[in-house]
């Protein structure tokens, strides 16, 4: 034992908590680099203050046009757009989840062989690369204006989102549980149903609820490029300078998004 010669008190004084980046020169290079970048970035911003001041006044007038919100005059248009959006959302979410499950299985390295894995990861990458608006423009060009283009857009975006997150959850399952199911002589589909699904089900349900919520918000935006839904109603009211109706549409969107968010949060808490 070296207990007689080892000075624990001195060692304790000399001890420092380990830094985030262990190599000293790299640590200071990263800190200085970040500082220099921030200074350079701020110095290149040009602000035209007179233009900004005019803008504030114009924004005030523009927002003033929103009051009071008018739910009555275009009531049937708002209602129609709303129903269209909700239909798009539900159909697209359902379709997207259905299609995302096989992609997720293929994109989980612990279930799929390498070629299948790469193919499914490719689908996910494509779906996640393009922003919904871009996909919507393509679908509108292919299928014409209307909710069909919007629905397909949302379904396509749902595939990438769900498949990626579910695949990651599948890769994180406890292998021993799946192995035990395999050891009973189960078929591959039984392995999925008994060894994998019970482990990913809470995440699957939670993400589905979350995606429903996202899809409704997106459906409001997609209308701006003619892909149907309440976004169309909003766009039309702006085009006609009916800002009071636009305000009503915005309020409706806000209320529904809040309701969706609350509901999906509630569902996610319940299944955890």
């Amino acid at each position, binding site marked *: 034992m070296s207990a007689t010669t080892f000075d624990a008190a001195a060692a304790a004084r000399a001890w420092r908590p380990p830094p985030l980046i262990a190599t000293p020169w790299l640590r200071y290079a990263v800190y200085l680099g970040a500082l220099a970048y921030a200074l350079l970035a701020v110095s290149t911003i040009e602000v035209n203050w007179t233009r900004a001041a005019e803008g504030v006044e114009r924004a005030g007038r523009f927002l003033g046009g929103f009051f009071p919100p008018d739910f009555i005059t275009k009531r049937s248009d708002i209602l129609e757009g709303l129903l269209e959006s909700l239909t798009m959302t539900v159909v697209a979410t359902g379709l997207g989840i259905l299609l995302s499950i096989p992609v997720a299985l293929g994109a989980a390295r612990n279930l799929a062989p390498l070629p299948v894995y790469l193919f499914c990861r490719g689908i996910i990458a494509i779906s996640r690369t393009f922003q919904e608006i871009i996909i919507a423009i393509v679908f509108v060009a292919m299928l014409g204006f209307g909710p069909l283009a919007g629905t397909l857009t949302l379904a396509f975006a749902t595939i990438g989102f769900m498949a990626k997150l579910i695949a990651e959850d599948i890769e994180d399952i406890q292998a021993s549980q799946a192995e035990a199911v395999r050891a009973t002589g*189960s078929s591959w589909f*039984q392995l999925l*149903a008994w060894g994998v699904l019970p482990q990913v089900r809470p995440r699957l349900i939670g993400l589905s609820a979350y995606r429903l919520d996202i899809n409704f918000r997106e459906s409001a935006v997609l209308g701006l490029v003619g892909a149907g839904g309440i976004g169309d109603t909003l766009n039309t009211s702006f085009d006609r300078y009916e800002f009071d109706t636009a305000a009503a549409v915005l309020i409706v969107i806000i209320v529904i998004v809040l309701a969706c968010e609350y509901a999906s949060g509630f569902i996610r808490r319940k299944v955890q």
Partner: protein
Amino acid sequence: MLLTIEGLTKRYPTGDLALDKVDLQVPAGQVMALIGPSGAGKSTLIRCVNRLVEPSAGRVQLDGVELTALGSAALRRARRRMGMIFQEYALVERLTVMENVLSGRLGYVGFWASWFRRFPRKDVEEAFRLLDRVGLAHMADKRADALSGGQRQRVGIVRALMQDPKLLLVDEPTASLDPKTSRQIMRLIVELCAERGLAAIINIHDVALAQQFARRIVGLRAGRIVFDGPAEELRAEALTDIYGEEDWSQTIRPAEEEDEAAEAAL
């Protein structure tokens, strides 16, 4: 001979040789303990028997069927006759006790029947009978993760028995349990094997437990069998062969306890 293993070799893709030409025979109804240091290849050996791990070379025969030559459908049918019990229980934690037990029948029912949990009435009856045998019938609808370690392992045992196996492959059944529960679980496994005429290969770290509950002990070291004999012949020299140099005088069971232990093994 129920199980015949010839020249079984497993080399992992990393290059590690886990099993090196292992020959082993297990007659019907024999409970055999497989001991050896961590990494000796015990887990690999039993997983090569039901081909959860694919052997690199060698042959495994169960009841005259050459397992190593089977296609995937025939392998699934053959797996039904080999119940497996795991170290960390490996229950599907979000399923109920009854669902876990019934999962032992997956090899016997079709996909949709299993999806809707529509198992034959006699399977459910057998499940309740076995759960009652291990004292857990009242827990049937509890979720598996609500159980204690000993209870989970009992459910794991019942799941394996539901397969109507000829052979139990048991991987460190007591590694996560306290000493008392370990003994209870080992006793339960040995009793059930005797009741149903099952053979068992039990991987186990604890030499004293192995000696207490198995009459035959096989020692594995670095993928080779270095000891194979009755429990009472396991002496200090044999343990040194298996594990390396150490003071074994306190590990080996004193002679006067042997009768009592032999009784327990029956």
